[in-house]
């Protein structure tokens, strides 16, 4: 028992490093007693180190802590995503006025690290309990983060909404887990898979109930319809870096666990038949995913059209984006998973980019309303051109990374002859252009009001960060071989043969 645990520690190094750096940050914070970039730097270093160790695990494929977590390319991929996004967002926080003006000192850094830790665990957990715990870890830290600005009404309101909604959904999830446990007699998804493969249960109502209830937990993390209601309000209320964090990291974590849950638990003896999943008869979860994803796409896009606040618009857009990503799961094969991973990478760059521009702008203008961006293209050309890149990427115009993601998703769909679904998705992305282009319209097509035409100045660091996000968005759009190779390599999960 003990030495097994000790062995397990080997495959737990990245998380360990995170924990250590977490503690280091806290200590630093206590020592410094004031806002300083040092803590952020320390945190970033810690994350980089853990990412390095995670990278070391690339060729490992093993199970640890008596079947609680696994290490496989899939989890490593997500660990990389989390590390990258966390680093970027910690840097965002340095730019964000909201964070700077908050009463806290540097809490956000280690809160974010701990969130990253939870995300890592989510990506690698293969046990329902572990899934639940890691999910809660992520949630609880996000509750705190979203309420980061104590004095700001919106912030605290959003925190309240988030915590109650989150608690409810996770509660429902654990209830569903308990049922599934009783049903299958195990918490380990491999064992559950084995059990289900043997037992012949043509969609027994109880089974369905479990799945739906557990889905509530995951669904609220990836803010998919109908578990999305918290998203707009929380996104709007939280400080922008936090919003970005929720939009990218935590929903990526949600996808990580969602994919693993479905792609492992409900496979016929964890078999993959020439790339396609051998789904357990009677539990045809792809249909339910179709429902979710179509609903998310339509609702997200259609409501986003009406938003006047860019932040809220991005909230809805990320609901829609989540819908697109889920399409990959629908086709129930490796190709789909690959497409999802590609899209997640794309999503990271373009969405973070959009949020960063938002941070910069609202620092200057103290607003995230569209109307505030009138004629901004003439006052801050570089920023706005970057924004244009991100917006077009989000709407999936070719030669941007967003198109690559969509292209692969649709390829996956069409490869399994789901033309109609692809068409729905495409029409949705046409609709999505309405509101993405609207931002550009305000920035470029509209003239700034008389009087305020002086150029806005931004720090060189801001520009560097901006290019660091914008250039990959363009480059990988034109040359996406690396993305695809990574995704294809990472689409292998432990225990799936």
């Amino acid at each position, binding site marked *: 028992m003990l030495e097994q645990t000790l062995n397990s520690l080997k495959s737990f190094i990245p998380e360990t490093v995170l924990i250590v750096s977490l503690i280091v940050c806290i200590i630093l914070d206590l020592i410094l007693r004031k806002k300083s970039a040092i803590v952020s730097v320390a945190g970033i270093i810690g994350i980089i180190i853990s990412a390095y160790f995670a990278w070391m695990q690339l060729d490992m494929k093993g199970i640890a802590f008596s079947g609680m977590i696994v290490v496989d390319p899939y989890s490593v991929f997500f660990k990389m995503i989390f590390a990258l996004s966390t680093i970027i967002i910690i840097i965002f926080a340095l730019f964000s006025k909201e964070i700077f003006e908050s009463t806290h000192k540097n809490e956000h850094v280690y809160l974010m690290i701990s969130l990253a830790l939870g995300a890592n665990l989510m990506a690698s957990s293969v046990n329902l309990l572990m899934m639940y715990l890691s999910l809660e870890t992520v949630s609880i830290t996000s509750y705190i983060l979203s309420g980061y600005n104590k004095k700001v009404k919106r912030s605290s309101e959003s925190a309240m909404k988030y915590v109650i909604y989150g608690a409810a959904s996770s509660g429902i999830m654990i209830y569903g887990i308990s049922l599934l*446990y009783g049903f299958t007699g195990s918490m380990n998804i491999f064992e559950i898979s084995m059990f289900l493969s043997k037992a012949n249960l043509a969609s027994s109502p109880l089974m369905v109930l479990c799945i739906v209830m557990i889905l509530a937990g995951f669904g609220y993390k990836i803010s998919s319809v109908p578990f999305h209601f918290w998203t707009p309000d929380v996104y709007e209320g939280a400080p922008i870096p936090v919003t970005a964090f929720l939009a990218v990291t935590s929903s990526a974590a949600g996808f990580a666990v969602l994919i693993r849950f479905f792609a492992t638990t409900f496979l016929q003896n964890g078999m993959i038949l020439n790339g396609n999943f051998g789904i357990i008869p009677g539990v045809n979860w792809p249909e339910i995913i179709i429902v979710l994803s179509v609903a998310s796409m339509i609702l997200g896009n259609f409501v986003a059209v009406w938003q006047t606040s860019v932040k809220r618009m991005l909230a809805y857009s990320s609901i829609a984006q989540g819908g697109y990503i889920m399409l990959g799961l629908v086709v129930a094969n490796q190709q789909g998973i690959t497409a999802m991973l590609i899209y997640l990478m794309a999503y990271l760059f373009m969405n973070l980019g959009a949020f960063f521009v938002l941070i910069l702008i609202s620092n200057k203008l103290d607003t995230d309303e569209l109307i505030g961006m009138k004629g901004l293209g003439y006052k801050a050309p570089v920023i706005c051109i970057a924004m244009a890149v991100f917006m077009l990427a989000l709407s999936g115009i070719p030669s941007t990374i967003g198109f690559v993601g969509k292209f692969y998703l649709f390829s996956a769909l069409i490869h399994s002859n789901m033309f109609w679904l692809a068409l729905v998705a495409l029409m949705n992305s046409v609709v999505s252009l309405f509101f993405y282009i609207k931002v550009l319209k305000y920035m470029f097509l509209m003239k700034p009001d008389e009087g305020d035409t002086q150029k806005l100045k931004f720090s060189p660091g801001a520009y560097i960060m901006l290019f660091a996000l914008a250039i990959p968005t363009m480059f990988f759009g034109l040359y996406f071989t690396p993305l695809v190779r990574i995704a294809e390599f990472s689409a292998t999960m432990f225990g799936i043969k």
Partner: protein
Amino acid sequence: MEIGLNHYLVLGAVLFGLGLFAMISRRNAILVLMGIELILNAANINLVAFSRYCGLGVNGQVVSIFVIILAVAEAAVALGIVLNLYNNFASVDIDEANTMKD
């Protein structure tokens, strides 16, 4: 009569329902949080009952302990947030706080 698995499951289900009801109906934030506790405990009852009656060892109990711990953490954070809510809105009525909506 013999108390069996089903009784516990029913009890759990009832608790779950009550919890949800509390969350939906109560205006007071504290009561809503208590609703959450009910839900979690409903889950706990299930877990324990299953492992007790289906001969699944102690897994269930272990899990329920985890859940209890987690409930505590969650409650702590939640109460903090509610407190902050009170500071901002001078009330713990969660319907007061609906400044953000479409």
